[in-house]
């Protein structure tokens, strides 16, 4: 069970906050600072290519059917809170023993026609082969708070660590939203597929359950999908209907331990060629699902079929090059890391034909 604390320790939230578990951010800070303490006076190699990773997992499935009749949608302007979560991670450099990474997450919500946000981070970690298990386990423990299905898995490899830590933060932010807002729409980035290393089924179930208890509906938008119907990506299939509408899918099967916790739709919500895979909590009734999308249409702005709240969450947590430089500056100044410029072997060997390690 997740230990519940009152909101007194996190006064930065100013939307309804009955009880929030603050364990994860505190552990994030502690582990972040602790990991950086052990990196002092080491040389740091800046990445030739800085890769930004947004946590997004999708397991391809087969036997997909697309119902031919679209579900037409009519925006409902009934006042409803729309909230969204996104996280981002980035590798900001390498040391002789490991990597320096940063994660950040953002909750954005629209209420009374205004967008507001809470942004957590950046948390900078120095991850090494030696401490990766300790860091990951500590964060998992902080989040799961008890022996859990996930604890049995081995810790991820070094390169997976940024995504994994960002996923943990994302799950925590999602849970926070599910437990704080009522009668609202909660937007996740990605799908409602669970059972992957980043999406423990039990956790996602608990998050959805918490949301349902407060009469919220969870909708997950995937920017990319691999789902195909008749060989075509489901989001590419043109229909002669006027948006906004949903296309219902059927026949999706997954192999254990992967579980679908949402019903999958193709959402074409504005004019134009943009459509997204939309997962809506399976437990909601068909009427509630349609009602939720119609309320979303009536309460949020849409650009290229994508809700503004989720777009803002993504924008707010994404690291800009400026921030990467600032974090490198922070680590070199605060932790006296020595920047070294190790040659890019691709560039070195292949000259202008070497595309850089990040693109290899």
């Amino acid at each position, binding site marked *: 069970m997740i230990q519940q604390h009152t909101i007194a320790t*996190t006064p*930065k*939230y*100013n939307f309804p906050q009955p009880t929030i578990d603050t364990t994860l*951010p505190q552990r*994030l*800070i502690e582990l*972040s*600072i602790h990991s950086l303490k052990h990196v002092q006076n080491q040389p740091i190699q800046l990445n030739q290519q800085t890769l930004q990773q947004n946590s997004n997992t999708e397991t391809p499935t087969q036997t997909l059917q697309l119902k031919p009749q679209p579900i037409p949608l009519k925006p409902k302007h009934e006042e409803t809170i729309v909230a969204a979560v996104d996280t981002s991670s980035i590798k900001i450099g390498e040391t002789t023993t490991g990597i320096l990474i940063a994660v950040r997450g953002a909750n*954005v919500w629209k209420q009374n026609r*205004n*967008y*507001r*946000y*809470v*942004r*957590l*981070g*950046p*948390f*900078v970690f120095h991850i090494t082969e030696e401490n990766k298990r300790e860091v990951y386990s500590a964060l998992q423990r902080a989040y799961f708070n008890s022996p859990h299905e996930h604890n049995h898995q081995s810790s991820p490899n070094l390169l997976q660590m940024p995504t994994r830590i960002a996923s943990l933060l994302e799950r925590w932010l999602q849970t926070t939203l599910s437990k704080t807002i009522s009668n609202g729409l909660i937007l996740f980035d990605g799908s409602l597929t669970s059972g992957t290393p980043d999406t423990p089924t039990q956790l996602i179930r608990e998050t959805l359950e918490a949301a349902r208890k407060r009469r919220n509906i969870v909708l997950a938008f995937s920017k990319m999908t691999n789902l195909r119907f008749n060989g075509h990506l489901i989001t590419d299939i043109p229909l002669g209907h006027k948006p906004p509408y949903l296309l219902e899918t059927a026949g999706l099967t997954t192999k254990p331990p992967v579980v679908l916790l949402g019903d999958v739709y193709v959402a074409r919500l504005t004019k134009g060629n943009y459509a997204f895979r939309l997962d809506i909590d399976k437990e909601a009734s068909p009427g509630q699902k349609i009602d939720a999308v119609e309320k979303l249409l009536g309460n949020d702005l849409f650009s290229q079929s994508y809700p*503004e709240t989720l*777009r*803002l969450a993504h*924008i*707010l947590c*994404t690291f*800009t*090059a*400026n*921030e*990467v*430089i*600032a*974090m490198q*500056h*922070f680590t070199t*100044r605060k932790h006296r890391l020595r920047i070294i410029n190790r040659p890019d072997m691709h560039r070195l060997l292949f000259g202008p034909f070497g595309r850089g390690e990040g693109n290899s």
Partner: protein
Amino acid sequence: MKLYKKEGNILQILSFPNETVEKGDYLLIEDADAGKALIAQVIDVQFASIPGILEELLRSLPDGGELVQGEDFDPLEIAPHITYIQDASLIVCKIRATVENESLTPSSSWLPSRSQSTIKKVPIPTLLKLARIDGKLPIVLGGTKDASLLTIDASSLDGRLNIITGKKETGKSHLSKLLILDMIRYKTTVVVFDLNGEYLSLGMTADGKRNAHHDKIHVLSPSQNFKVALKQVHLHILLEILIHALHLPGTSAREFRRIWQSLKERDNLTLRELGEAIRVWHCNQHVRDALFSRYYALVNSGFFTDNVAEATLLEECLFRAREQGGAIIINLKNTSPIDRQIVVEYLLGKLVELLTSWRLKAVFLFAEEAHLYLRETYWDDIVTRMRHFGIFTTFITNQPDTIRENIYRQADNIFLFNFTNEHDLEVVSRAARVDAETVKSIARDLPPHHCLVLGKVVKDFPMVAKVKALDVKTMGETRLFFKEMN
């Protein structure tokens, strides 16, 4: 600060928010291993091109320009580092010299180490010492930004062509007064063409009392205390006046020459006799009419007299100034444009005459808005021929395009006040002693009474100074209708 780029004699230096550098400052880029240093002047301060800055700015305004409100939970306090990087600036500098073994060379051909060089601001006194901008005849122009004095040497104005320019009410006349007073302190002879009567009270303090220079300031007002007897005038000077100021045609000028010689032979060179001679002279009626019209122009100017005793003040003043230094202020305030040209033609001719015969050693001429009284052909004369006679001119103008390009090219010193107009800056930047970027970049941002000094007086190290105040009665103020109300 970190050295970022060098292209030609332009340096780009990366600077961080805690390092305050402004336009006009001097930086020393020292490469200890090379044993050399570059002295560069800041000509522009820009935002550094930081990767991702556009995204950063766009992120703060995603909602149609309306700021998204929110809270940032930043436990590691990285935000100050972000703003630190965002506010980094790129300093564009012009290399002025290389320092090696404590001596300066104008070279910029070597490349200091990017990683090892240290960069620091050079205080103006240090630079003045390095460049040996001092001397035995100091003239304090004013204060520099770092509270030191900018002192030039009076001898650096000797034999030089100077230009003081800037837009209206920026302090040009103030600086020229300062230079005049300091020059007469060093016993020089100064002649001022005072178009607006601004220099008439140079000998008075601000509260109207006599100042230390009072006895050395001689105000000559044409047709009042400044008159000329025909006997004192050489024929060639009068012909210059008739041809250039009064546009007398060549044929008529030839007749005038004969009349003049005839009167001179009879020792009858008076206005009255000249008029009579024109009347009875055997010549074409048109020529007579032409001569008469010019004759009456001379008479009506009131500048010419038959009384020799009335016409001795100019030489007296010049000789007095020769002995103890002094300024002869030619008050052109209430003089018509034609009379103004007559006076200037006469005076320049007279000065050349006195200088050629070595009765005067040299004259420092201050000419305000010279285009209003100086004929076309005199410009070249002043910068080439007259310089050899010992007339060293300082032009003062708020319309830089009224001074010819070749004057700028030959100017030794330029005292530049604020200009915002692109065209004006373009004109001034043609001066040979300075690069266009420096002029355009620094002059545009000069506050009132601040002057960019260029040229030999500062050994080609452009410097900005706030011109010091003078205890001199202000004249030539603009008359205001709403003065009482304000």
